[in-house]
């Protein structure tokens, strides 16, 4: 099936070339890091993990989120999602690859990476994280590829695959739980030392992940004949809405626990993030932006008029992604290290080189997504599944509008 990825339009090749250029530029910065060490980053003795690990944490959520499409399909027999499943799985593959790469670029001695396996240490959560991430990557590769191949041959999905599919659903929860445990079990890091962290991780994953997936799918629709069934989209948006509400609810639980109990250790990171501490206010603006954007996205999501407006939807999702990214991709990590064990504040900001290396990883992720989605959309096209119709609906929508009616979201398609 890989051959599909080799044939494409000029625009397709242009995009791939563009990504390769980004990867090339980023890898220069990485080479610099390999030669000179992690001193090229903004990390230090007090904030010893930075942008790389926070991106890893955020992307684990994206990997886990594919399950929000897979699960309704397999556990509830919810079929409108069925043409989206493969994209959830392929997205998870790209996300896992990016996660692993972010770990590779973060460690000081990448050539010794295999020590994690050669000297397996089960009391370290990092060991388990490596297992679950690679396992999830493998499961999704297997399930995604075999299903798509069967589809293409117009055969039913093989029976032996079922156990793997069910395992992958449960596994998805595990990757984010284990990643949360990475932070959760550390004494002296009060912002992380909370039983609800894993739950927060899952909630934020299940809103931000599907939101990113939907955004990428919308872009995919622009360049291919693929069209998401409207019903599948609105189901996913409802999932995003609930997950975002739960996410913010969990966050408010943290705030309550910290401030009602008046425990200094629990309050200080929040005070630093939202009000500044010891005269350090680096993150205050960003954190309030997060609260503001979260409020806006929730308002837009819970109001049916806005939620069902397909024109507005990309904006809503974009706002949500930015909000969750500030929270989990930045605040969580920096708030964990600050205040430091000495009750001081050491601000952290990624350097340009750190950002270039991260760009490389993201570009690799985009490349993987592009290639996998290209294959998936072409197969769907061959099969005539979930294709765009002249009226703007998907073939799965069972729409009754005429090509000339030019209907948009107000179209009178009768929903299946």
């Amino acid at each position, binding site marked *: 099936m890989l051959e599909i990825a080799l044939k494409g339009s000029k625009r397709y090749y242009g995009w791939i070339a563009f990504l390769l250029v980004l990867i090339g530029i980023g890898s220069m910065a990485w080479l610099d890091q390999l030669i000179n*060490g*992690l*001193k090229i980053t903004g990390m*230090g*003795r007090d904030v010893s993990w930075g942008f790389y690990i926070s991106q890893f944490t955020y992307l684990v959520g994206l990997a886990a989120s594919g399950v929000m499409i897979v699960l309704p399909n397999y556990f509830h027999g919810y079929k409108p999602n069925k043409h989206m499943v493969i994209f959830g799985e392929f997205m998870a593959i790209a996300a896992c690859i990016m996660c692993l790469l972010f770990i590779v670029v973060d460690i000081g001695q990448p050539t010794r990476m295999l020590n994690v396996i050669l000297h397996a240490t089960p009391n370290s*959560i*990092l060991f388990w994280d490596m297992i679950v991430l690679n396992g999830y990557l493998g499961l999704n590769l297997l399930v995604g590829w075999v299903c798509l191949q069967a589809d293409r041959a117009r055969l039913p999905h093989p029976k032996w695959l079922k156990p793997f599919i069910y395992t992958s659903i449960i596994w998805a929860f595990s990757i984010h739980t284990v990643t949360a445990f990475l932070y959760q079990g550390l004494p*002296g*890091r009060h912002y992380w030392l909370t039983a609800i962290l894993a739950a927060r991780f899952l909630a934020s994953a299940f809103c931000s992940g599907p939101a990113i997936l939907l955004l990428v799918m919308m872009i995919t629709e622009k360049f291919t004949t693929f069209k998401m069934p409207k019903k599948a989209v609105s189901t996913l948006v409802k999932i995003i809405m609930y997950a975002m509400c739960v996410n913010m609810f969990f966050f408010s639980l943290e705030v309550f626990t910290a401030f009602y109990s008046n425990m200094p250790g629990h309050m200080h990171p929040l005070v630093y993030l939202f009000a500044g501490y010891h005269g350090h206010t680096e993150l205050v603006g960003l954190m309030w932006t997060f609260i503001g954007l979260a409020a806006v996205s929730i308002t837009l999501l819970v109001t049916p008029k806005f939620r069902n407006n397909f024109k507005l939807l990309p904006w809503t999702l974009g706002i949500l992604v930015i909000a969750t990214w500030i929270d989990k991709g930045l605040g969580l990590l920096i708030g964990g290290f600050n205040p430091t*064990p000495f009750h001081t504040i050491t601000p952290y900001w990624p350097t340009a080189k750190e950002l270039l290396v991260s760009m490389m990883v993201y570009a690799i992720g985009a490349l993987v997504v592009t290639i996998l989605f290209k294959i998936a959309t072409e197969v769907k096209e061959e099969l005539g599944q979930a294709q765009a119709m002249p009226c703007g609906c998907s073939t799965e929508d069972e729409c009754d509008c005429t090509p000339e009616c030019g209907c948009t979201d107000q179209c009178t398609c009768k929903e299946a």
Partner: protein
Amino acid sequence: MKNNRRSFIKLAGIAAAGLGIAPRAMAAAMGGSAPIKDDPKGITAKQWAMVIDTTKLNTAKDIEKLAKVCHTVHNVPSIEGKQEVKWLWPDIYEHSFTEQENPHLPDAVTRRQYALLCNHCENPPCVRVCPTKATYKRPDGIVDMDYHRCIGCRYCMAGCPYGSRSFNWGEPRDHLDLDALNKEYPTRMRGVVEKCNFCVERLAVGKLPACVEASNGAIHFGDLNDPNSEIRAVLRERFTIRRKPSAGTEPSVYYII
């Protein structure tokens, strides 16, 4: 008997891991089939511990002098700024005993500087989180580093509640006087974590830790598990506190206030 032998072998193995970096020990380990023999002069304990008398050792100047001794002995690079490497350093009460503050402490206590270093915790989270056993606890209670095993993930730095660990963000040898190296102890490569090791390499040949030796009696060092040891006597007589007791790590460094 059997037990003794086993613990000897274990000790020897760990000594090999810990000291394997010393070229002589390395050659012995690879050259012959005989296990490395412990130096008969070496001193041992069930749980090494330190008691720092802050009534005697409490100025930044004095502590920095000890730090210099420690850093010279261990070839610790001197780097300015947030990417610094340090094994032993002075800090104020507020930073050192973050949970044991009150606004009306005696001036004497708040004016002092406190010598900070790795606590060689009995229950060390840095060991718990390390994915490669590069950080490990020896049978004598010392939490040691195998610089050759470390992958530089810095999980131990996130795990340590005392900020006791440093990472070699760049090439440490660029920040060392290469003509004045201590040949008895290795330099590090970039990309690995390091921290105070209670001078395991000196204990192995019967010497006390360098800072203890240089402290003019302001630092006591001995076996916490031996009721007759000098430090147990000190702990019985003087009031001491430890850093962050709530973390449950059981630090082996005590401070006489």
